[in-house]
């Protein structure tokens, strides 16, 4: 056996609905009409929340934030494939996915205005909130998956999001390796939006696809058109099924594009061309899916106009609630550093409160 082929691998790419609205009927998922409309509604809501947030940010009413305009299908498609008892592990650009899972809109604004209270909603919905340290959330997903196995929670799995940049991190590798070993019921969804701030994906890795990174762990890897909500739905559904059947994790590379700045602190003109951005606007997931609904007779212009207004109204109310929010405890950090009380910390809490209100101090 001087030179012998050991193993063969290949990576496939999937698309159900292409950018011109062409449908692959064999792959088309069977989804109820009302749910299809709901999927559309969530993408639109996400888009309008981002647009509103851009304005709020410019007016100084919220801080820096990360828009996900153009990526709505990638996270929404995956989340619509989930069941309520599945876990969602967040990176930070999954607005449509969170909304699909019922995040209150004001939580988004609260988060970007610097309040932990933004995250109060998350546990009930089995969501792990925004994880800023790139890639660091992936081991959590594997741990959650392990816990599901440990507790014999059947038919339950985890969907974990990340950006393309996360694939360069050590934690990505360690997490996927463990997931493979433990056959953890985890679906990793990598939103390859082509950029990590100013770094194009070609400078994250020499690998031709991100999907092929799954081979290192002998887990299923697949590339999906991330701007095709049906493709994302189908791929995630299949992966979740495998996960729930004990067939282990899947890595989905959702090919999409960050059409806006990284965050509102970023100026993408420094590093990429308008032309590139425009070419991706043509692949916008929202009009594409609208055409699909129209073709099915589920949608028309009037509904479109009405939805836009309805969502604006919903967002307006959320802004109202957000701006009416008054945090209760300035000393919340002391309350929540531990679940137990300790003398040094309580002494500091008193010191803190004294300094806040020097007059009504009790010493």
């Amino acid at each position, binding site marked *: 056996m001087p030179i012998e082929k050991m193993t063969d691998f290949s990576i496939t790419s999937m698309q159900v609905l292409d950018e011109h609205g062409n449908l692959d009927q064999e792959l088309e998922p069977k989804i109820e009409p009302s749910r299809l409309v709901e999927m559309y509604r969530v993408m639109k809501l996400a888009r309008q929340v981002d647009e509103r947030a851009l304005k709020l940010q410019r007016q100084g009413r919220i801080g820096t934030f990360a828009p996900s305009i153009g990526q709505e299908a990638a996270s929404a498609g995956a989340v619509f494939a989930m069941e309520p008892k599945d876990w969602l592990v967040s990176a930070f650009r999954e607005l449509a996915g969170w909304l699909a899972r019922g995040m209150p809109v004001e939580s988004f604004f609260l988060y970007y205005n610097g309040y*932990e209270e933004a995250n109060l909603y998350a546990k009930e919905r089995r969501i792990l909130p925004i994880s800023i*340290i790139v890639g660091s959330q992936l*081991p959590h997903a594997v*741990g959650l998956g392990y816990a599901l196995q440990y507790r014999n929670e059947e038919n339950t799995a985890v969907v974990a999001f990340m950006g393309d940049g996360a694939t360069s991190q050590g934690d990505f590798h*360690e997490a996927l390796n463990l997931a493979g070993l433990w056959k953890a019921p985890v679906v990793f969804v990598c939103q390859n939006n082509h950029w990590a701030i100013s770094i194009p994906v070609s400078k994250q890795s020499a690998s031709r696809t991100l999907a092929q990174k799954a081979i290192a762990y002998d887990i299923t890897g697949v590339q999906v058109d991330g701007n095709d909500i049906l493709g994302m739905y189908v791929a995630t559904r299949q992966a979740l099924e495998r996960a729930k059947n004990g067939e282990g994790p899947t890595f989905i590379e959702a090919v999409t594009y960050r059409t806006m700045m990284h965050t509102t602190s970023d100026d993408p003109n420094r590093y990429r061309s308008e032309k590139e951005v425009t070419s991706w606007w043509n692949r916008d997931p929202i009009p594409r899916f609208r055409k699909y609904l129209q073709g099915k007779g589920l949608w028309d212009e009037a509904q479109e106009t009405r939805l836009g207004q309805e969502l604006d109204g919903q967002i307006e109310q959320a802004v109202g609630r957000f701006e009416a929010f008054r945090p209760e405890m300035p000393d*919340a950090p002391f309350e929540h550093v531990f*679940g137990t009380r*300790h003398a040094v910390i309580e002494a500091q809490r008193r010191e803190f409160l004294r300094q806040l209100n020097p007059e009504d101090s009790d010493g």
Partner: protein
Amino acid sequence: MAKLNMVQAINLALSQEMQSDPDVLLMGEDVGVDGGVFRVTDGLLEKFGEKRILDTPIAESAMVGTAVGMALAGLKPIVEIQFSGFSYLIFGQLEGHASRYRSRTHGRYHVPMVVRMPYGGGVRALEHHSESREALYGHLPGVKTVIPSTPRNARSLMVSAIRDPDPVVFMEPKRSYRAFREEVPDDPESYPIGKVMLVKPGDALSVICWGAMLRPTLQAVERVEAARKLAIEVIDLLTIAPMDQPALIESVKKTGRAVVVQEAPRTLGVASEIIAGINDHALLYLEAPIKRVTNFDVVTPFFARELQYIPTIERIQAGIEETLDF
């Protein structure tokens, strides 16, 4: 009641807590079949099976990272880091997530987790196997750092650590693993995290120490007491953070003199924090500067030179005498 060494005592705590709480599980490199390189987890695989005793690949960051996920789902993972010298790889997960989930969600989520790690020098081990870097953990808000010193308190603190609702870094002085035995009650016993232990009362001077420094400290104290006919108070810190400052202050208010014995390098070590706390609340009671008997601000030498750098009975004794004579 049996006479156990520290390895056996910790094993007892792990075994009993796992027995009584099915949510407790343990993971680490070589903790299963091998029973741990120090045999701390010996026999647990047989008792609890592969699902609860996980042999992991060499991936410290993901060990703690997956444990965070398990804890968020309500389990109580115990992670063994084979040697504290490899614990720097878990800093990202510890600082970034384990310590923060409670505060990030105002208590909705929390992370009950124990990270066990043998630490410290004196066992002729290779590079990275001798450091004492408890100060790094002690500086992280949201993390509790505990260091036992004897079999009995190792067991009772481990019980508390496992039951604690928050991440506890549990540093085990490997030099003391098999150095001596102590009576350890059969029934589970806990000792509160955040409290010192008064090892012996005294009025001439307070010596504060922790971990493997307790034994040489007691010997040094004995020598001084024998020679000078006085009583020295010895306090075992046990919890590095959150620190039991009130107890330390009370002691120093009584004795007016203190020595802190620390295996770690001096700069930004735990001794400095102890001194700062005493400065805050008991400066006027001090009759002498508080003496730090510590390692030095050098990279830990390979083991041939290592012992010269760790505080010895002689150095501790000299520190006590100097402080008494001041």
